[in-house]
């Protein structure tokens, strides 16, 4: 391609219509690291419940870039004076940050493991933090590593000199990001483009309506407002858009309870985690993925996609849990608490857990807060005051949001062969509790 030519590309997307990318972005999208996202299912094994949910991280990543740009352009267009006067931007600086935000949004998920978040439990432990690496760490490493050249060396970067480190830094919240860190909320925050896209996309492909909300209204009512406690400039929503923000929160709640935390979907997450650990043991002698700490490790990690896992499962690997997936003979939910369990319900859950263990049942447990999508209501989304009045958190305006609570539901699953015995134990435990 001649460096003097400029030809945009368009992707036809079922959620957003046309998604337009520059030749620079197109080259990044064509890179094998990004193309691998075509082989990573967005919703893991949710198709076991909603058969249409086969969409991938590839189109979701394009969607996030598209939405992040809509949000960015809307905020900058209407609050340009603020950015110039208070944060020291000029037009070139705003244009540059737009590029960084687009690339960060596009690449935020390149580090996902096969079947997306379902693989997070077999990430290795970071010795510095004592916690498992998350896919974001792999994304940052891939951006700084194999994607660095295609980010930094395109002719269209001659004027802006955007670096791979900046793009990764925005995703990580790296202090070296400087004032560009203001935009991190667009990628990972209460009003982020990631959530804004996946709610609509997951709803569409699952065939449900729960994830629908007014994205158009939300985009044109995004605002910048001083935080009422600290005065720090914060992304907010204009008063006229608070119902759109409310709709987003309600969509999150409905999608969480009906799709992301669906009891059968979570059963398959449990099976997949065990099967994947076994596959990793067999393939590399370890029960987890290699850490994102070297070029070789990243190369090995990139070999893993849904295709590889599917091939191994189809060959009969993955042990009993792989078998459960192949035959769709999954663990069944034997007991669950309410969505916001109190002390008594949690005690009952523990008693049943102990009883299952004593009875030698084959079982597992799960909790809503263990899900990557865990639902916490965005009660504190800031809404600009009406007619110059004081701002307020969304929960003050919306009785619906005010009534929502963090979902902490607990479930106990048993193998199909133990269902009858489990049912008896649960009944006995409930009767004992009532006495």
């Amino acid at each position: 391609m001649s460096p003097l030519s400029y030809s945009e590309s368009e992707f036809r997307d079922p959620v957003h219509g046309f998604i337009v990318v520059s030749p620079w972005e197109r080259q990044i999208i064509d890179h094998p690291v990004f193309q691998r996202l075509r082989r990573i299912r967005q919703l893991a094994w949710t198709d076991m419940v909603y058969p249409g949910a086969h969409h991938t991280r590839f189109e979701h990543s394009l969607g996030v870039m598209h939405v992040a740009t809509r949000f960015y352009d809307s905020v900058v267009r209407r609050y340009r004076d603020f950015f110039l006067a208070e944060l020291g931007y000029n037009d070139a600086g705003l244009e540059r940050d737009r590029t960084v935000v687009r690339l960060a949004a596009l690449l935020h998920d390149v580090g996902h493991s096969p079947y997306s978040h379902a693989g997070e439990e077999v990430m290795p432990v970071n010795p510095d933090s004592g916690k498992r690496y998350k896919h974001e760490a792999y994304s940052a490493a891939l951006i700084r590593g194999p994607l660095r050249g295609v980010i930094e060396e395109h002719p269209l970067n001659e004027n802006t000199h955007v670096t791979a480190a900046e793009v990764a830094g925005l995703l990580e919240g790296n202090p070296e990001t400087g004032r560009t860190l203001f935009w991190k909320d667009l990628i990972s925050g209460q009003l982020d483009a990631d959530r804004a896209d996946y709610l609509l996309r997951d709803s569409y492909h699952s065939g449900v309506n729960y994830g629908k909300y007014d994205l158009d209204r939300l985009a044109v009512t995004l605002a910048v407002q001083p935080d009422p406690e600290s005065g720090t400039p914060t992304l907010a929503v204009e008063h006229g858009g608070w119902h759109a923000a409310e709709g987003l929160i309600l969509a999150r709640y409905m999608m969480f309870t009906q799709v992301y935390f669906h009891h059968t979907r979570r059963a398959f997450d449990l099976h997949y985690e065990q099967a994947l650990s076994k596959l990793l043991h067999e393939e590399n002698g370890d029960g987890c993925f290699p850490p994102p700490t070297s070029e070789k490790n990243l190369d090995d990690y990139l070999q893993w996609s849904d295709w590889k896992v599917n091939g191994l499962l189809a060959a009969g690997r993955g042990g009993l849990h792989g078998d459960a997936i192949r035959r769709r003979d999954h663990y069944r939910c034997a007991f669950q608490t309410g969505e916001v369990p109190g002390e008594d319900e949690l005690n009952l859950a523990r008693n049943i857990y102990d009883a299952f263990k004593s009875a030698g049942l084959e079982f597992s447990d799960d909790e809503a807060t263990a899900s990557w999508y865990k639902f916490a209501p965005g009660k504190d989304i800031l809404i600009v005051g009406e007619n110059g009045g004081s701002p307020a958190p969304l929960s003050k305006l919306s009785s619906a949001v005010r009534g929502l609570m963090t979902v902490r539901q607990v479930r106990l699953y048993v193998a199909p062969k133990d269902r009858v015995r489990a049912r008896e134990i649960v009944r006995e435990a409930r009767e004992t509790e009532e006495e």
Partner: protein
Amino acid sequence: MRVSIKFPWNRTALIGQLARSCEKEGYFGRTALMKILYFLQEFGGVDLGYDFSLYNYGPFDSEVLSDLDTAKVFSAVKVSVRHSGGYQIEPGEELERAEGFAAAFLTENGTAIDKIVGDLRGKSAKELELLATIHFVWRDQSERPDDISVDKIIERVASLKPEFPEPRIQSAIKDLLDLGYIEH
């Protein structure tokens, strides 16, 4: 057991206790809660399990707000919205009960909690945000020991929080050095 089937008393009780300790100094809001919990974990070594990430408003973990929600539901705290739009967090009717369930945790971490609360209560939300940002930057910088200097930290923080003039940042760094939260 894969997950912890127990009520999160430790965090709930701690949040309520912070509300009680800090309310005497004026109102205790969401920002103060977030930043004090940050210091408790990242400086005080209290095992809270949060994963703080840096934003332009300082270190933040949305799970803190979930825990605040839970603490409110179980009356360990009361949460209201001030006229200015900020939060006011006060001790709740069931705080003592929560503290009872979390007694071992609170005792084990009592020294750290007392020190950090004693050092930080009464500071404004804006101040706490600046202090927490400086600490985060310093900690990040200290992973490159040859590259750490007060000037560099001032430069980094100034670019992250342009609303603060450099002398103010320098003064806040001195505060943290004097308190022992960071060191040269």
